[in-house]
């Protein structure tokens, strides 16, 4: 009876940008890998 009945896999995070922010990422436009050496 004390068993946990539900696990929320998202922890309430709705969007990939929230996932990235929670992961401490500060990528270009939130989720783009940007290589300055390549010039773009």
């Amino acid at each position, binding site marked *: *009876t004390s*068993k*946990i*009945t*539900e*696990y*929320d*896999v*998202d*922890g*309430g*995070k*709705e*969007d*990939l*940008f929230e*996932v*990235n922010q*929670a*992961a*401490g*990422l*500060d*990528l*270009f*436009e*939130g*989720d*783009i*890998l*940007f*290589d300055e*050496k*390549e*010039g*773009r």
Partner: protein
Amino acid sequence: NSIIGDEYLWPTTVPYYFGDDLDINAKGVILKAFEQYRLKTCIDYKPWSGEKNYISVFKGSGCFSSVGNRRVGKQQLSIGAGCDRIATIEHEFLHALGFWHEQSRADRDDYVTIMWDRIEAGREHNFNKYDDTTSSSLNVPYDYGSMMHYSKNSFRNGTEPTIVTKIPSFSDVIGQRMEFSDSDLLKLSRRYNCTRTTTFLDTCDFELENICGMIQGQGDQADWERVSEAIGGPDMDYSNMGRCTGTGYFMHFSTINGMEGDSALLESRLLYPNRNYQCLQFFYYHSGNVNDKLEIWVREYNEANPDGKLRMIEVVNGLPEPLWQLHHLSLAISTKFRVVFKGTKGAGTSTGGISLDDVNLSETTCPEHVWRIKNFKSIMENTPMDTIIYSPRFRSKYGYTFQMGLYPNGTSTSPGELGAFAYLVSGDNATDDNLTWPCPWMQITMMLMDQHADIRKRMSNQRSITTDPNQKLQDSTMFTWDNPRKVGMEVEDADGTKYFRGPGYGTSVYLTQARALTRDFIKGGDAIFLLTMEDIAHLVSSQPVPTTVEPTTPSNLCTSVKCENNGVCVMDNDKIAVCRCAVGNDWWYYGDRCQYKSSNNDAMVTAVVSSVVVFAVMLVVTVVSVVCLRKKYKKKMNKTGGVTTTNMYA
């Protein structure tokens, strides 16, 4: 909007490699995302078999990708924790295929206002835009519904939105992460010159008089009719549900008249399978006698049967009901074929008949179970918050029994959202005892169906969870996915049936209630959840590494080339790093490193000076030549005693 430059394109079949670190659920969802690409676009994916450039999917910290094919050999794309949602994966792969975010396109300021003072400090760079020399919107109008658009609250520093749409009604549309929008698909199709999709075969809503090339079969006693309403029902079609006057057709086989045993055949156009498995999905309405029958047949063509041979697939066992019912049928056809809908009048009197609408045929797997929730809007509005409703129990083909739980009016932690959870539940004792426990690697998918008539235009919302046999209950030694009789709680159905329900796994932010009210998530008042359990244990093992690998471009020669003055280094023919120099309206840089600048003025001066110099040089040469020749001939004449003639007559 897409990055300009063909060097950023992938081949239409993209090689991929799954890193061992990827979650098993993520691998399964990525394969589902690939299926959406195959159904709706010409982009296909195949396991890496040694191609020079490929996408390496790994579990990084977060969800990210590069934009376009960088031609670096192993190009990384991260599907980290929390990224195993189909729309997130499709989004990242759209980046990899060469697309930026929608609100960064050159003309975005015509459609949205960026509220710079509401953006978190230091995150302003996320709202850059590209001019139309760098990006192309591929002649597609600004798409608020793109899955590549930020949501209104992205990177905000407070509670106010950072993006305000100029048309206010789009403010909650932006930021959808459900599925490709029509414009996403159009842009992808234009960018990659698509002519056909990989797994789609046919769709028909019977709106056009040609009924999608379907034909009335031969050797039958009656015909299917294209109508907008039928005696005995239905009063309207399923595609439009009476929303547009003068439209809304479906096919109807009336059983009011005629003899018992009379039948009518409706045959699809000829279809050519590639994959040897198909899913036929359609809506039907049964308003006839309980003995009337709808059968699905196929007419297969081969050398021995050039005129086709009929084969019965299934009798649709739906009882007469005053509603359009959804039906799925798995086929396994490998030769040219037609799908045949056969209606047969049964014994007894009838006041209606059988109707068909929204037929879709694709080379995909069918969902296993349907949970239809009637009056869904009312349920969303009237169910108290934090209250869950459960689907019936469904038994999968593997023997495990499962069900879905839905919070129609959100939870206190996520108000305004639908929450969706999956549970293993007990089935009958004898079956459960023979199953493997803890349940190994079964992926349960919960899809809220967008009931648009055309399968390619649906933006259904789906989430998947996978049973990990090693996972332990929090603060316990018991396994999460063990037999529900062991780790679950006994519950009782409304009808008094008792069974055990194991722990639930899912999300409290499945879909916002506002979005659930859009598109065709609710049609005729009803919502339809499609539920499937699939064994994905084969994804536990590593993807084989190819034995022969095409030589990659030495990681990237561009790293050793420095282009000056905003020049861009690109790989020419994958072999040489060259600088593409910046150009303006009347100036340009040139040189192997773009180190020199020139302009139209410079060119004009150069041209004038060059012309003058050339003229002067030619003049000198001409004068010298004339003088020399004169001298030479004078000498020659003197030696031979010749007479120099002059004009003797005027």
